[in-house]
């Protein structure tokens, strides 16, 4: 092989870079799936669990727009067939009262940094 003194170190760097996730997690403990602190008083959120999982960020974003900009206050829950105040701190966090044990658990694992907390200062 020609220029082996350049090609072989190059290939070693290539292999190290592209196997980064494999050796980065080497020393760490086996990954444990996230467990959330769920409220004990209720079985359901405002909508189904699947809907809340995929759409909660969109829901909160719409709530912000509707409440702050358009002035409407109440949200009709199809699941509970009941009106709720559109408020992160008064409605959501009434049950999910611990940000660190609920919101942050998933967000931290997926490098998600929602800007909810730029305005809502939640004291632990």
């Amino acid at each position, binding site marked *: 092989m020609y220029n082996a003194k350049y090609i072989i170190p190059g290939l070693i760097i290539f292999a190290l870079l592209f196997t980064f996730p*494999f050796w980065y997690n080497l020393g760490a403990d086996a990954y444990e799936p996230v467990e959330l602190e769920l409220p004990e008083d209720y079985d359901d959120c405002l909508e189904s669990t699947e809907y809340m999982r995929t759409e909660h960020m969109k829901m909160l974003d719409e709530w912000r727009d509707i409440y702050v900009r358009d002035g409407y206050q109440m949200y009709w829950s199809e699941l509970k067939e009941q009106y709720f105040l559109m408020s992160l701190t008064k409605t959501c966090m009434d049950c999910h009262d611990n940000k660190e044990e609920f919101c942050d658990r998933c967000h931290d694992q997926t490098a998600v940094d929602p800007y909810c907390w730029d305005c809502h200062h939640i004291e632990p």
Partner: protein
Amino acid sequence: MKAINSLILVLALIVIAMLGAGALGIEYLFGVIIPYLAVLIFIVGFITKMVGWGKSAVPFRIPTTCGQATKSLPMFKDKWSRLDNPGTKLGTVGRMFFEVVLFRSLFRNTKVELHPGQYVAYSSSKWLWIFALIFHYTFLIIVLRHLRFFTEPIPGVIVFLDQADSMLQILTPPLFISSLLILVALGYLLLRRFFVPSMRYISQPADYVPLFLIISIVVSGMLMRYVGPFKTDLMPVKELAMGLVQFSPTVPEGIGLTFYVHFFLFSVLLMYFPFSKLMHMGGVFLSPTRNLPNDSREKHHANPWNYPVKVHTYEEYEDDFREKMVEADLPVVKPLEEKAEETSENDEKKE
């Protein structure tokens, strides 16, 4: 037709993932076996290909005309020649660095135009360069961003990259600038092959397949992030990804079908990589016009595979046949001295 066939091929791959992971329910194959196989084929195939290229002959120095060799032609004062046509190792490293990082060869791209009255004009064309640059860097950012699924704890750099990429704060979840830009760049790279006649003429399935494949990967990823019915729960995805990199693979419940399509297409891209033109990722480092210093007038370059040749010089030939040459009145470089002395001695004896 070549484009349509390539599109059908990529659509078939999507159908395979949908049938396999969805209808047949063999998630383990698409979530564990194929990804492992893909990483193995990618790394082993890449190294094999590079070693194969390393074994093939290295050409003699190819001086490029974009600069002059400054050492042997000191009358040329252009300081950029040290980078464009370097004679030193440092200059060559610099040229390679800017080639890999900024694509300077593409920056020199020109286009030929035929003007009325049979005038041919060559003009600068930077579109390919700018869109290639956008494509490669957004692809890099996107690959790095995905490390959030494969690391725990997530390195600060990756978190920062994620936040910087979504800093526009439009859409929920926030739009990644890189996702939008890569689609624009891929769109240019594809439409260029459709609408420029000369490009369409030379475009092969090997050009279209990677484009359609990468577009499908980007689109399936974006669907999973932004569009309701395609969304998937990220926590089982992270569990699957972490299982893969910690060699304890699991296939958790609740991962959407879009994820398997996305994951399978990327696995196919990895497997296809070593056998495709995408190998320019490694090949760029072996470009002979870029990585050889122009020192052909300063150093003697012996062909490395020269074997010792038996030579018989003219001088040796004359030594062998001098007498006969002189007898035949052929001119000789070295006169026949001994013979001359002998004849003079004979003459003296006669006297």
